[in-house]
């Protein structure tokens, strides 16, 4: 009887899932892509990933010390940010750029806006775009021991042939973690199985992008109708666009970032469609071959608007008045 009289404030139902559990599961899911990247690009890639991760954790800890607040390193979000940034860098980038990017991601994009859950864009992608704009020479140079010359996406943009099988496998040039579709999808499946992410955003994102490419891309419907292409559908082109660049890594690991995606279901579909269209626009009509990172951070910026328009109505509100 005594137990039944207790009064407590909500929440009454608690989940055992914690922030750090989610973060470490993401780290675990990223491991296949990381290991593949290191296996492919050598020890220097391992150094870059270790440096970005280490710097991110250290920076967050030091910033909390300076602010005289309890350190937030233990939730693991800094590790995810650092690891994602490392996977988004070319394999032979100077270490000081990697450190710089990591500090920027943690301090400017994440902690200055209030830390975990408050950042307005994905820290890793924000830092990546900052680095691409600042150090274009190093950030767009994907030459390494194993692969030289342009990335598959750049080849497609020039209309040159690519080997789709190698792209799916990951035996191509690119950033450390983006090359292998198989490794990324493996990690993503693990996350989906755990329930950490679902297919709503990645599914709509990739589907919209595929439709966009089929309609507007080279060998697509629009070039066919205007007469600049002889065929109206090219499976190789579509597959290489889907497998190339950071699309898979971005769709599964960065567009689904809890903080910077819409909360509402309807909003998540809109977000995915928006990302797909933006990526298609950047890749097909933009000057550079890749557009995933810009598409996602632009998408992040309109998330508050999407949420505003898809906010579900509270019970008893919004109906017709009689």
């Amino acid at each position, binding site marked *: 009887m005594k137990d039944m009289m207790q009064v407590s404030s909500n929440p009454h139902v608690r989940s055992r899932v914690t922030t750090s559990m989610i973060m470490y599961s993401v780290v675990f899911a990223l491991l296949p892509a990381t290991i593949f990247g290191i296996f492919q690009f050598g020890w220097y890639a391992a150094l870059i990933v270790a440096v970005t991760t280490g710097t991110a954790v250290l920076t967050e800890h030091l910033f909390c010390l300076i602010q005289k607040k309890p350190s937030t390193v233990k939730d693991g979000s800094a590790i995810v940010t650092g690891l994602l940034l490392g996977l988004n860098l070319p394999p032979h980038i*100077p*270490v*000081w*750029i990697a450190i710089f990017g990591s500090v920027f991601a943690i301090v*400017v994009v994440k902690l200055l806006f209030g830390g975990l859950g408050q950042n307005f864009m994905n820290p890793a992608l924000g830092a990546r775009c*900052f680095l691409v*704009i*600042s*150090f*274009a*020479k*190093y950030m767009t140079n994907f030459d390494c021991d194993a692969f030289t010359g342009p990335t598959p996406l750049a080849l497609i943009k020039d209309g040159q042939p690519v080997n789709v099988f190698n792209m799916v496998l990951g035996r191509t040039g690119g950033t450390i973690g983006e090359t292998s579709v198989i490794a990324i999808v493996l990690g993503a499946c693990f996350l989906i199985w755990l329930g950490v992410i679902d297919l709503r955003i990645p599914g709509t994102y990739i589907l919209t992008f595929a439709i966009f490419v089929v309609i507007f891309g080279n060998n697509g419907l629009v070039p066919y109708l205007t007469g600049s292409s002889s065929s109206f559908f090219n499976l190789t082109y579509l597959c290489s666009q889907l497998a190339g660049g950071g699309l898979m890594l971005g769709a599964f690991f960065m567009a689904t970032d809890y903080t910077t995606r819409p909360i509402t279901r309807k909003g998540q579909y809109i977000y995915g469609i928006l990302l797909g269209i933006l990526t298609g626009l950047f890749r097909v009509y933009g000057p550079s071959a890749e557009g995933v990172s810009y598409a996602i951070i632009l998408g992040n910026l309109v998330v508050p608007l999407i949420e505003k328009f898809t906010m579900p109505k509270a019970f008893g509100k919004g109906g017709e008045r009689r």
Partner: protein
Amino acid sequence: MKSAFERLYNGIIKENPTFVLMLGMCPTLAVTTSAFNGLGMGLSTMVVLALSNLLISALRKVIPDKVRIPAYIVIVASLVTVVGLLMEAYLPGMYASLGIYIDLIVVNCIILGRAESFASKNKMWPSLFDGIGMGLGFTLALTLIGMVREFFGSASIFGLTGPKVYGTTVPILLVELVNKVFNPASSSGVVRGLNEFFAGEFGSFSPIGILVMAPGAFFVLAILTAIQNAIKAAGEAKGKDMSKIQSGCSSDCLHCAESGCAKRLVEPEKVTKKADDETTKVVESKETENNGKGEE
């Protein structure tokens, strides 16, 4: 003469338009991509500011109160046209790099602000020096910001190009230092690897390109505001009056003068009361006007 020096000190240090009053942010952010641009913008603004202050102060008893803003703008615009044409003739390079921002001096809030708050209430002599002081303060601020952005963004200062500043000399020195520590002729693979690694690292120093682009301006502004807030907080902790130092937001909605602020949480009673009084006054005056018309 004493008042002149006081005005200069006030404009450059005490009420520096950029660092303290936070006025004229548009040119501050837009043209400070290099130290020379900042200097040119600051000096042209100073000329306009000094002369407009002088003229407005001279005409302060002639200009009717109700049309003072258009009258000021006519004066400022004529001066800006003169400065712009002179610049186009004698400094075409500078004119090209500053572009539209020369014409935009017309609506620079420092100029209208000083006209409204100082020149229209004071004699010509102090007004002239107030303009010069404010202009020098603005020039100083723009040149400093331009120098910082130019140094980090394009590795030069006042156009002195990269290698002399930090483009190669520093990296070369560091590389040689590393070479001395890790002997490049060593037979050990590890030592040679380390040597190559550090030489590659230090040799690859390059400027942060984003700082000379638009986002860089906002980074600089954010840092500037942060420094101001720190100074303000430190001063207030010591009990000094820091009300002169403006900043982005002190989160003090109750005493904030910006009544149109979107984040406003509290409507200060005093202000609304005052506004109410004013509106009633306006209504009254209109009524009296109407009455007058009716009588006619």
